[in-house]
């Protein structure tokens, strides 16, 4: 037994065991199935490229809007005096942007604007995905 273990402990034995691994043969239809897959791949339409030309104006507008909103937010936060002296419903936190200052009329304006923005972005994405790249 000891001799057997010693033999196996030698690298040669590990080499022999791992080198002698039996080879397998690919199945007879393997090459044909690979070629079928290759032909399918060639026949498949190329992936639709992203329509940067169409998307760019929308992206620029979105970027500008985001920047304006951020800027407005920063301006509001930078004026703590205004925020605390605001006469507004107690239900609305004092840090809310000035858009709520004008009461129900102003809020309605902002809601309409938000809805309009949502509508435009939906229409824009529908146009982009319509396949007319």
């Amino acid at each position: 037994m000891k001799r057997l273990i010693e033999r196996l402990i030698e690298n040669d034995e590990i080499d022999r065991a791992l080198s002698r691994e039996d080879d397998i043969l690919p199945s007879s239809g393997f090459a044909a199935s690979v070629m079928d897959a290759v032909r399918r791949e060639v026949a498949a339409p190329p992936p639709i490229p992203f329509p940067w030309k169409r998307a760019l104006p929308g992206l620029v507008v979105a970027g500008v809007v985001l920047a304006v909103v951020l800027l407005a937010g920063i301006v509001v936060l930078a004026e703590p005096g205004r925020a605390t002296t605001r006469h507004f419903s107690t239900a609305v936190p004092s840090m809310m942007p000035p858009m709520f200052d004008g009461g129900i009329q102003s809020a309605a304006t902002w809601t309409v604007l938000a809805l309009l923005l949502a509508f435009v972005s939906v229409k824009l994405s529908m146009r982009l995905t319509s396949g007319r790249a």
Partner: protein
Amino acid sequence: MSPSDDQTDVERVLAGDISAFEGIVRRWQAPLVNLAYRFCHDRGRSEEMAQEVFLRVFRSLGQWRKDAVFSTWLFALATNLYRSELRRIPVHAVSLDDIAEPADARALAGDLEDRDRDLAVRRAVFGLPAKYREALILFYFHDMDLTTAARSLGLPEGTVKARLFRGREILRGKIPKLLAVPRLKEA
């Protein structure tokens, strides 16, 4: 199997003759399926993985720089795919710690057939950590050619050498257990 055959076929495929790819497939199907088999020991899965390699090769034939031998590029691509495929869905491996200790020392004294012993060592390779297992698989697949194994793994030769050393060391530490092959625990 000559490098010029590969180069000719690659050029024809790149020129638009898709049927020339069949030459590449026929020449390399056995080595790629066998390499995959050594990674997963599952015939069906090894053919699936080899097919995926051929598809990737087809897509990226243009990236083969002709200063490297086609087979080196091919095996590196295959090894990379097999490794990531096995990371995604690992092979059910018998952990080295799950190999039962022999209850009776006489079990070791029994004359195990060479084939059984070899099988036990191969199974034990599957219980090794991936980096040692991959180095051992590639080294023995390439007929113990360290340079080719290192190229296939995309690693420096020294790193592969160190991993081979450590992998064998772990195997050697487990060899008394390996001799109790018939008593492998059912996982």
